[in-house]
């Protein structure tokens, strides 16, 4: 086992990785940008090193600098988290060249899987169904015509190096195809430095179901069951659950076997996730891609299996063998995760920045919070707007959804807009509760992206606002006394009953 590991990330995942490292007796070292000097991921580590600058390119994406910091502090390994450099083969190579263990797959696997066309070929050769697609092509190529002839419209133009919906276009008509290919190619070139595109058959309203895989360096690969990730906004998952309400035991077995086959074909080592599109009606599924890293939504798998995936990542990277066998993997109960974003669900998911003035996450039986923020913190424009993840587990699906619904209703966040009301509306939606949903859920249910407050609550809100506005001039300013001024700790108590401080109230 390592003695010291550099965590090359920020936010909730850096906190979460550090927590497991400390529990394993490994000293985590944080890196942080100037915008993150007081952030929780710094407090979660034992040592912390500044990466000068604020922009991601200067800091969390700065391979040379991060490798140097790891060497300087005496770390033996680097955990990349997700996002940032986690799927960058050049970073894995740089770590290896510097003598640092990279806690993840090899650079070769990563490169092979990062290329959508290579990855699909690999899956096809391994006998796994993939969505019908063309080779890499340009407008006017013969391959374009052949593909259109066979599969028709609508189709997707996709970037070979793509991800996160960038460089992707849905095309409904032949006359839009060339333009879409040009556009997607330019977008991909700008985003990934690789403008190659290909065509893919469009599967309407699929479910997005993924299978977690764990593989050690001795050829032992198992799968850890599936996660249903169909609730998405802008191709970004926001709610995930396991088990998937759409899977039969037989389908689960098939998808698990397919995931293992893909991982083996890629020579995959460490934790990874194989993503599939599932036709909810026919039960047919298609390989989509394999994510060569820990996923945001890994906690729901941990919740039902009673495992710590980061622990296994670290053990495998340190050369231990995977002592779990497939028969050990027995899910218990049901888990759901909601991603809490600083964004306004009622204004087209516009990101929201500012200071988190109130932050009171719920806690209690079956709840887990992985958080990257604390009250008083500035939510900046520099990085991903995900603040935290709330995970609810219960013996059954109905209870875990209700636990989540109650917890979301009790989650206090003020200062920046969050998607909490949207999450609550989805989790409480009858269709969602029946498990009848796919990736089009938000489009079909525009009501969940509009405020749905009862008149009674709105009237009460107005009354409370009028009351609270009255508090600002008098009683609430005394709240500072408990924060700082010595000797007058009791002064704030007059605020407890508003009518006790009526004399002091004065409205503008």
């Amino acid at each position: 086992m390592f003695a010291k590991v550099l965590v090359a990330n920020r936010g909730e995942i850096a906190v979460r990785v550090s927590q497991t490292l400390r529990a394993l007796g490994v000293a985590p070292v944080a890196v942080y940008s100037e915008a993150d000097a007081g952030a929780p991921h710094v407090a979660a580590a034992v040592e912390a090193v500044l990466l000068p600058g604020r922009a991601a390119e200067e800091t969390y994406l700065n391979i040379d600098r991060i490798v140097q910091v790891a060497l300087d502090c005496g770390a033996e390994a680097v955990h990349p988290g997700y996002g940032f450099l986690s799927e960058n083969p050049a970073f894995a190579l740089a770590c290896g060249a510097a003598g640092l263990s990279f806690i993840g797959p090899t650079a070769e696997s990563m490169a092979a899987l990062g290329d959508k066309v290579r990855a699909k070929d690999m899956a096809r050769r391994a006998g796994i169904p993939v969505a019908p697609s063309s080779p890499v092509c340009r407008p006017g190529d013969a391959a374009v015509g052949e593909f259109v002839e066979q599969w028709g419209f609508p189709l997707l133009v996709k970037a070979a190096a793509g991800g996160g919906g960038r460089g992707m276009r849905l095309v409904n008509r032949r006359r839009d195809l060339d333009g879409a290919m040009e556009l997607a190619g330019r977008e991909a070139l700008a985003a990934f430095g690789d403008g190659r595109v290909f065509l893919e058959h469009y599967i309407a309203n699929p479910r997005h179901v993924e299978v977690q895989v764990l593989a050690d360096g001795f050829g032992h690969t198992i799968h850890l069951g599936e996660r249903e990730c169909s609730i998405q906004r802008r191709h970004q998952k926001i709610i995930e659950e396991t088990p998937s309400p759409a899977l039969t035991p037989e389908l689960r077995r098939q998808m698990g076997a397919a995931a293992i086959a893909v991982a083996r074909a890629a020579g995959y080592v460490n934790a990874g996730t194989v993503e599939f599109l599932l036709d909810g009606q026919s039960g047919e599924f298609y390989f989509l891609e394999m994510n060569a890293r820990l996923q945001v939504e890994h906690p729901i798998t941990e919740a039902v299996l009673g495992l710590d995936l980061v622990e296994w990542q670290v053990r495998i990277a340190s050369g231990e063998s995977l002592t779990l066998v497939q028969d050990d993997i027995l899910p218990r109960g049901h888990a759901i995760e909601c991603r809490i974003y600083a964004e306004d669900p009622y204004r087209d998911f516009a990101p929201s920045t500012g200071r988190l003035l109130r932050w009171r996450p719920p806690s209690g039986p079956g709840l887990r919070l992985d958080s990257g923020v604390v009250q008083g913190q500035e939510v900046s424009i520099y990085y991903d707007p995900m603040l935290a993840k709330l995970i609810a587990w219960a013996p059954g699906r109905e209870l875990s959804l209700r636990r989540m619904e109650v917890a979301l209703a009790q989650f206090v966040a003020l200062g920046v807009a969050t998607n909490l009301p949207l999450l609550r509306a989805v989790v409480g939606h009858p269709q969602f509760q029946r498990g009848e949903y796919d990736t089009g859920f938000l489009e079909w249910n525009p009501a969940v992206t509009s405020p749905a407050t009862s008149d009674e609550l709105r009237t009460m809100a107005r009354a409370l606002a009028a009351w609270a506005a009255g508090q600002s001039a008098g009683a609430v300013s005394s709240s500072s006394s408990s924060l700082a001024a010595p000797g007058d700790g009791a002064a704030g108590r007059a605020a407890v009953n508003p009518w006790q401080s009526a004399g002091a109230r004065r409205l503008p």
Partner: protein
Amino acid sequence: MTQGQGQGHGEMRETYPSAGEVYRYRTAEGESGFTFSLDGAPLDGAPLESAAAGLESAITLDIESRETGEGLCRTASGRAYAFAWAWVGAELHLWLDGDLFVFQRAEGRRRGGAAGGESAAADVLAPMPGAVLEVLVAEGERVERNQTVVIMESMKMELVITAARGGIVRRVAVQPGQQVERGMRLLELAPENESGND
């Protein structure tokens, strides 16, 4: 119009609730709590949704608050609701039972329409730092509430900026390509009943 049950120091207020309407309401503090009554019609003539469904009635709340800006209120029927509030600039943000409500002070409103035209509430502000991609309206143009007026790019995403209320574009303060800071004015909007005053 229903009168609140508090006697004595009822007061007239104005506010902009989140959806852009402007209401009058009365507040009073009684023996048993805080009483609030809504004064029926919205001030600027915008349609009052569901006015018949209880918005006009008075409510009485028992409020317990902590100096942390959080509290708990009970209605007359005994239902308990947690709440929290914070000032975000000139906006009062209120969290109530899992929902967020945003209120703006009605500065200058009581002085009458015209003179209060410069109020911040009538402007369209940049919600975060970024670059202006497109301006979709011109000066003098009439815009509807929730109409898209500007498109920005920020955090590598497109932001669609909409008007929080209807009005006439008095001034376009930015142009495409321009970098803007958070809170910077993008458009000045004159309420419709003030159009032509400026």
